[in-house]
C-alpha cells in the first residue's frame, strides 16, 4: 500500500485533470445540440439569424471541443498510469464500456466534425445538417457510456468477484445499474442548462453594450426559454437522484446533510449552514430548521435517515467538503430558477431585452452552470469516498505504486500546462463571444490572409461556385 502522501497526490491529480476536462464536454454537449437546433431552424425557416448564430457558436464550439478532446485523452490513460490496481480489478467492466464509448461516440464525433466545421460548401446543407446531428448525437452517446461506467462504480451490480477481480455476468445489469438513469439525466440536463446560461450571458453582454440585433435577441430569448424549462426540471431530477443516493449510499447523504446523529422522536433537521468537523464528530455553528430534513428526504415529518455516527469512522466521506459543495450547487440552482422565472415575467411587458438589472443578472449567471456542475461532481465523488468501487474497493487500494517525487512532478506539470493551455483557450473563447454574432457571416468572401480564413462556409444558396470539391482536380497518382 502506498504511503498517504502519494495517494493524496494521485487523488489531487485525478481531481484536477477531470475537473478541467468536465467543463468542456458539458459545453460541447449543450452547444452541439444547440447548433443542431439552429441549423435545423435555418433549413426550416431560411431565416438568416439562425445561420448567423450557427456560425457564431460554431467557432466557440470548435475551441471547446478541441480542449475537450485533448483533456479527455489524458483521462483515458490516467486510469492505467495512476490507478492501475483499479484497472486490474475492475477493467473488465469499465474497459468494455469505455471501448463502446470510443466506438459509438468518439469516432462518430471525430468523423463528422471535419464536415461540420469546414464542410458546408463542400457537402451541401443536407449532408452538413446530418453531420451536425451526428456530432450532437455523438456527445449524448458519449455521456451515456461514461456515466454508465461511473454509475456502476457508485452502485455496482451484475458482477461476481473471481480471483480478486471483477467478472461481469450480466451486462444489462451492469449498464442499467440503480444510479445510472438519475445520474445520466441529471448530467445531460446540467449540460443543457449550463450552455443556456453561457449563451444567455453572452447575449446579455452584447445587449448591455448597446448592441442589439435580431441574432442577439434571438439567442437571448432561446437561452431564457431553455433556462426556465430546464432549471426547475433539474431541481426535480436532482431530488430523485438524492433519494436514489439515500437508498444506495446513505453515508454520502449523511455527509451532505452534516447530520451526525438522530435524536429519538425529533426527525431530521435541515442544517442550512454549519461547518462539519470530522475529528470532533460534530457540525459547528449550525443553523437548522427542525424536521425539514425528514420532510425533504423521507417526505414525512418523523422519518429518519442514517446519520454519520451510524458509520464507522473509516467509512465516512469528508463532510466538511461535501456539505458545502452540495450547498453551492443547490444555491446556484435556485438562482437559475429565479433567473428563468424573472425572464418569463419580463416577457409580458416586452422588457426582456431592456431591463439592465436583469441583463446584469443574466451576465453574472454565465459561469453558474459550470460551477454548479463542478460542485455537484465534487459532492458525488468525494461523497462516495473512501470507496472507488462502492463497497468493493477502497481508493487507497486502487492507486499505482508511484513515488511522491514522480507524482509531484507530473501534478506540477499538469497544473502549469492546463493553466496555460486552457487559460489561453478560455481567453480566445471569451474574445470570440465579445465580438458577437455577425450578420451574413457565411456570405463573406474568404480573405485568404494567413490564419485569417478560419471557418469560411458559404451556404450553397449564396455560393454559385459550390460545390467546391468539383473544382479540385487530383493531379493524378504516381
Amino acid at each position, binding site marked *: 500500500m502506498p504511503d498517504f502522501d502519494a495517494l493524496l497526490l494521485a487523488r489531487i491529480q485525478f481531481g484536477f485533470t477531470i475537473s478541467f476536462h468536465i467543463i468542456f464536454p458539458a459545453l460541447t454537449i449543450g452547444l452541439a445540440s444547440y447548433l443542431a437546433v439552429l441549423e435545423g431552424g435555418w433549413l426550416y425557416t431560411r431565416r438568416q439569424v439562425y445561420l448567423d448564430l450557427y456560425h457564431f457558436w460554431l*467557432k466557440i464550439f470548435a475551441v471547446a471541443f478541441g480542449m475537450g*478532446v*485533448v483533456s479527455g*485523452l*489524458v483521462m*483515458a490513460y490516467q*486510469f*492505467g*498510469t495512476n490507478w*492501475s*490496481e483499479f*484497472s*486490474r480489478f475492475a*477493467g*473488465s467492466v*469499465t*474497459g*468494455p464500456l*469505455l*471501448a*463502446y464509448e470510443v*466506438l*459509438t461516440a*468518439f*469516432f*462518430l464525433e471525430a*468523423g463528422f*466534425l*471535419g*464536415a461540420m466545421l*469546414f*464542410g458546408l*460548401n*463542400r457537402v451541401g446543407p443536407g449532408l452538413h445538417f446530418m453531420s451536425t446531428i451526428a456530432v450532437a448525437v455523438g456527445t449524448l452517446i458519449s455521456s451515456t457510456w461514461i456515466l454508465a461506467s461511473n454509475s456502476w462504480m457508485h452502485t455496482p451490480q451484475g458482477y461476481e468477484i473471481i480471483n480478486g477481480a471483477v467478472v*461481469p*455476468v450480466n*451486462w444489462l445489469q451492469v449498464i442499467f445499474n440503480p444510479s445510472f438513469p438519475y445520474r445520466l439525466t441529471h448530467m445531460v440536463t446540467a449540460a443543457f442548462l449550463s450552455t443556456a446560461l453561457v449563451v444567455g450571458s453572452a447575449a446579455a453582454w452584447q445587449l448591455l453594450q448597446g448592441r442589439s440585433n435580431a441574432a442577439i435577441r434571438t439567442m437571448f430569448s432561446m437561452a431564457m426559454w431553455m433556462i426556465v424549462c430546464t432549471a426547475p426540471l433539474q431541481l426535480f431530477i436532482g431530488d430523485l437522484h438524492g433519494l436514489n443516493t439515500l437508498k444506495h449510499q446513505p453515508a454520502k447523504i449523511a455527509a451532505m446533510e452534516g447530520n451526525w446523529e438522530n435524536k429519538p422522536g425529533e426527525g431530521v433537521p435541515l442544517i442550512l449552514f454549519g461547518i462539519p468537523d470530522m475529528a470532533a464528530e460534530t457540525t459547528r455553528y449550525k443553523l437548522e430548521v427542525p424536521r425539514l430534513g425528514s420532510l425533504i428526504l423521507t417526505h414525512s415529518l418523523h422519518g429518519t435517515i442514517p446519520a454519520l455516527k451510524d458509520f464507522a469512522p473509516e467509512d465516512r466521506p469528508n463532510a466538511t467538503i461535501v456539505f458545502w459543495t452540495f450547498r453551492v450547487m443547490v444555491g446556484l440552482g435556485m438562482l437559475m430558477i429565479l433567473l428563468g422565472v424573472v425572464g418569463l415575467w419580463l416577457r409580458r411587458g416586452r422588457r426582456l431585452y431592456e431591463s439592465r438589472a436583469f441583463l446584469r443578472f443574466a451576465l453574472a449567471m454565465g459561469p453558474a452552470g459550470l460551477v454548479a456542475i463542478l460542485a455537484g461532481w465534487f459532492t458525488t465523488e468525494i461523497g462516495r469516498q473512501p470507496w472507488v468501487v462502492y463497497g468493493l474497493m477502497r481508493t487507497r487500494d486502487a492507486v*499505482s505504486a508511484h513515488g511522491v*517525487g*514522480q507524482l509531484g*512532478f*507530473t501534478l506540477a506539470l499538469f497544473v502549469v*500546462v492546463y493553466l496555460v493551455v486552457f487559460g*489561453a*483557450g478560455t481567453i*480566445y473563447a471569451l474574445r*470570440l463571444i465579445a465580438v458577437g454574432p455577425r450578420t451574413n457571416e457565411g456570405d463573406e468572401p*474568404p480573405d*485568404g490572409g*494567413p*490564419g485569417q*480564413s*478560419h471557418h*469560411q462556409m458559404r451556404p450553397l444558396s449564396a455560393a454559385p461556385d459550390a460545390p467546391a*470539391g468539383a473544382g*479540385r*482536380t487530383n*493531379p493524378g*497518382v*504516381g
Partner: protein
Amino acid sequence: MGVDLALIWAIIIAFGVMMYVIMDGFDLGIGILFPLADDDHDRDVMMNTVAPVWDGNETWLVLGGAGLLAAFPLAYAVILSAFYLPLILMLIGLVFRGVAFEFRFKATEEGRHWWDKAFTGGSIAAAFFQGVTLGAFIQGVPVSNGQYAGGPYDWITPFSMFTGVGLVIAYALLGCTWLIMKSEHALQTRMRELGVYLAWALFVVIVLLSGWTPLALPAIAERWFSLPNIFWFLPVPVLVVLAMFGLLRSLGSGAHVAPFLLTLALIFLSYSGLGISLWPNIIPPDISVWAAAGPDQSLGFALVGTLFIVPFILMYTAWAYWIFRGKVRRGDGYH
C-alpha cells in the same frame, strides 16, 4: 467456446495501433516539419491539410487504450504504470499540438508564433515519447504478482532513446510525403528534396534497429534466426529494400501519391517485423495475450460491438477524407 477471444482482441488492438501510427503519424509529422515552412501561408496550408481529420486520427490511440483495458486489463495496468513518465509527457505533447489547431487561428497576429511552437514542440514530444515507450516495451517489463516490478526510470536506455528518435524520423517522413500529395509549388518541391534525406535517415534507423535488437535481446534473436521462423521473416528485409528503392525513385520522378504509399509500406513492414518479434507476448518478455486476457464475458461483449461498428467507422472516416480530397491551396477558404 472454441473461439479464441484473446487472439482476436490481440489482432484488433494491433490493427488499432497500426491505424494510429499511420494516421496520426502523418499529422504529427506535419507538426515536426512545421518550422521548415517558408512563411505563414505555407504553415496555413500544412495545417489545413490535416485540420479536418486530425481528431479522428487521434481517436485510434484512445481505442488502443480502451481496447487494452477492456481485453487485457492486466497489460493495461502494468504497461501504463511502467511507462508512467514517458506516457504523461506524450499526453502533454498531444495536448499542446491538439489545441494548436484551433488556437493558432484564434490568436492575435503577434501571439500566433507561440502556437506554431506549441504545435511543433508538442508533435516532436509526442512522437519521441511514443518511440521511447515502444523501445522500452520491446526491452521488456518486469512483473511480479501482476504488478509492475521495475523502477520509475527503467525506461531511460540508449535503445529507447534511439527508438524515440527513430519514430520522430518515421513520422516526419510520413508527414513529408503526405504534404507532397496534398500541396503544390514551392512547398511541394521543398518536401520532395527533404523527403530524400528523411528516407535515407529512416532507412539507416531500420538497419540499425534490425542489428541492435537481436544483439541486445537474445530472446528476439532466437526467434528471428531459428527455423522455420527465418523463412517467415526473410521477406521483410527484402521488401524493405524494395520499398526504399521505390520511394527514392518516386521522390525524384514527380509523383504525387506514390511517395506516401511507399512510406506507408515501409512503416507497415517495420510494424510487422515488430509483431513477429513479440508475438504472442503482450507484456514482453514472457506474459502472453492469453495470460493477460480479461474474462470472456468482457472480451465477448466488447467484440460484438467492435465487429459491428468498426466497418461503419471505416466507412465514414473514408467519407471524411473524401470530402477534403485533393490539393490544399494557399489562401484556400475552406478552413
